[in-house]
């Protein structure tokens, strides 16, 4: 996406790089924001425009937007794409040269790194959503989240459904077609709890975990502003009780709940990072809570044979956690580069489309062209489809909603202004009458 002229002008504004001793969220309302793409002002705006008195307490403006996590988003997306390509080759009993290169890396680590990408995404979500949650009222927070994820999800599900019914790929479990009922279930993520429904886009299960976290955030938002230390404690207690209660994974709905309970501690770990960054939680308290959430994750792992579906996930989680915390401090030229930001903004689109597009391309071309050319073509296909999804669905939908929200707020402020003017006028008249009476 090319940056609009306004953003480019902002980048060269002398105030944008002015060294400052301190920075308050309210400054974002008046200062130009040096951002390489149009979405970043939206995000910073989201983080800072509301409730400045009780919101995040950042010291510098550089602390608001986490450029280092953009780079990590990009790497995490690559790892996930790579892991799924690898899975396809394993399932089709074919070899892929890149697998050997990966073994060199993962051999000494004694763990596959497939899930590092997912853990990184969950952690980043925890950090960012907490920052957003500290700055928005619950209703608006939930609506914005819904607008952010739903249109692209629907587009991704429809694309996957079309490819499946066009026999370009097969679904999980070997199904080669899916009816309209399955399409609707998948669009609302009901497929995971409904028996005999084909899952057309298997990666969407992660959104269930995200949505559960959004709901928890919305429910505890007021508390987070007044007693932020209490929120992770409530989360840990709820998770612990949940894990005790949900100890079987049939029927499917219980498996879904178990999956959510298993992965939520990762988002809570991200929340702790977000709270410490926003200076709402003491670092030592965060370390204590972090140990608790690690133990909850481990407990979930040790008490289930199915979830998480990979062994040694704790190692990948801790490695991802260390990298995420480290990269929250990265703010150099490399991580601030336009192309990293541009790619990171498209990671959700890549996440949604990589599986159907890549599997369709590999299924059609790998037997004819061989693994390497087919994989390269698949990657190009994923990049193009993700770009289209971002450019024509995800970004316009969000921008449209923001415009509507802005116009609504402007109308509300205008009517408030009129009301206050009327009240002022009425007050002045009343005072005049009193004055007349006293005379």
């Amino acid at each position: 996406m090319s940056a609009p002229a306004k953003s480019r002008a902002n980048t060269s504004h002398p105030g944008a790089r002015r060294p400052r001793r301190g920075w308050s969220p309210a400054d974002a309302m008046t200062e130009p924001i040096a951002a390489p793409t149009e979405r970043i002002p939206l995000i910073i705006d989201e983080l800072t425009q509301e409730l400045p008195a009780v919101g995040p307490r950042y010291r510098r403006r550089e602390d608001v937007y986490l450029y280092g996590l953009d780079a990590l988003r990009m790497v995490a997306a690559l790892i996930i794409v790579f892991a799924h390509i690898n899975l396809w080759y394993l399932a089709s009993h074919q070899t892929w040269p890149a697998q050997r290169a990966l073994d060199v890396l993962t051999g000494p680590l004694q763990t596959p790194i497939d899930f590092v990408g997912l853990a990184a995404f969950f952690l980043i979500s925890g950090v960012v959503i907490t920052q957003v949650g500290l700055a928005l009222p619950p209703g608006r927070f939930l609506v914005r989240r819904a607008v952010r994820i739903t249109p692209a999800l629907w587009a991704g599900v429809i694309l996957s459904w079309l490819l499946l019914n066009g026999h370009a790929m097969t679904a999980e479990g070997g199904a080669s077609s899916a009816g309209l009922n399955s399409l609707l279930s998948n669009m609302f993520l009901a497929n995971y709890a409904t028996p005999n429904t084909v899952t057309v886009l298997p990666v969407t299960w992660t959104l269930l975990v995200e949505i559960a976290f959004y709901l928890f955030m919305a429910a505890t938002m007021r508390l987070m502003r007044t007693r932020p230390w209490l929120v992770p404690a409530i989360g840990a207690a709820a998770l612990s009780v949940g894990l005790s209660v949900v100890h079987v994974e049939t029927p499917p709905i219980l498996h879904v709940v178990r999956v959510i309970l298993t992965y939520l501690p990762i988002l809570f770990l991200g929340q702790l990072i977000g709270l410490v960054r926003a200076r709402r939680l003491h670092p030592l308290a965060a370390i204590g809570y972090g140990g608790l959430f690690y133990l909850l994750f481990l407990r979930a792992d040790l008490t289930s044979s199915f979830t998480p579906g990979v062994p040694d996930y704790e190692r990948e989680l801790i490695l991802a956690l260390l990298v995420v915390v480290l990269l929250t401090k990265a703010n150099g030229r490399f991580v601030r580069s336009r192309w990293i930001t541009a790619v990171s903004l498209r990671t959700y689109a890549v996440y949604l489309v990589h599986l159907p597009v890549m599997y369709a391309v590999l299924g059609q071309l790998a037997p004819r062209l061989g693994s390497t050319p087919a994989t390269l073509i698949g990657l190009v296909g994923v990049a193009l489809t993700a770009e289209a999804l971002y450019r024509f669905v995800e970004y316009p939908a969000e921008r449209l909603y923001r415009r509507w929200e802005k116009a609504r707020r402007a109308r509300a402020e205008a009517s408030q202004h009129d009301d206050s003017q009327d009240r002022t006028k009425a007050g002045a008249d009343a005072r005049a009458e009193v004055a007349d009476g006293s005379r």
Partner: protein
Amino acid sequence: MSRALHPPAPPSQSPVGRHAAAPTYGDGLDAADAMEAIGGPAVPLARAAGTILILYGTLLGLWSQQHNESPALLTAIRHWFNRPLGIGEDFTMLGVLLLLLAAGYESAGAAPAARALAIRLARLYAPILAATTLAALLTHVPTVIWTNPMGATAGLADYARNLGLVGQVTASVPVLVPLAWVVALEIVARLGSVLDSVVRGDLPVVETIGLAAVAGVLFAAAHGHLGQLAVVLSSYPLVVIGQAIRRTRDGTLPIWATALLGVAGWALLGWAEHVCPALAGWWYPLTAAYAIPLFALAVVTGGEVAERIAAAPITHWLATRAQWIVLLAGVAGFPMLALLQGRTSQVTAVLPAVAVTCLVAEAGHRLANWRAAPR
């Protein structure tokens, strides 16, 4: 000791710039001065954490392993942390790697003048001398100390070889202080800083030479030579990574160069697993994958809280006596555990063992630093 009470340092002694003679943690400075000199709380935090982990791993973990005991605390920690995270030897190696990273970070600061360097090297060697002497004496007393192999008796020749650290690199000599190689690598890092001051450039010459030397020894080990030396030197890349992190922080090395050195160093550790049978199955590269970002985190996120913890008396004390405590744990702590064995639970026995280790370490540290003590 308040920093405000000190007169300003004369320009020649001011630790400014990469090639100035920066003080180190063992120079008798107070916590705040020392932290300022070495650029933040990372070194004291890593040293203190490393020391605690080694004490735990040695006095509780190793002792239990050697005596077929399984205290509930140890079993629980292994079940919830060591096994899932793949950190072996009850965190001992994690502690060692943190110490090596801190040693590298500190050594990259600057090379002192010849006399000051000699004093520092002597102070670093002092714990080896003391622990080896004490261990040699205790091998003739009916008690238990940690030697390799266990229960070794040291003659005069073995004692001399251990003093010269020959035991660490020769399989035929019994090792009286098995962790002496950690301090030996720190001495090597200090000597490397001399070369650093000679080169006086912004290229990572010393770091590259360090990694090349390790690669050479590993290559030799792959062909059947220098196997024991390869085992010891396989952890030296952590020192190099510590040096690179320091130079990046000081602005004399770009971050991509540090990343490259880090990956190369980590790869050497992975290679060593294949080359040295003694290292196979211990998963040291995984432990290093935790230790390196942990240390980097301590460097880049050194905020107020980290500084307060680093400046706390207990942290400062542990950080300044790290080498002594690490080497004496098996020499002073084990006899106390042997004395209390069967009389009390092992977890309870660890407390007096830690106390004895710390007391002997304090005595040794004071003796070695008596001239540097503020008067």
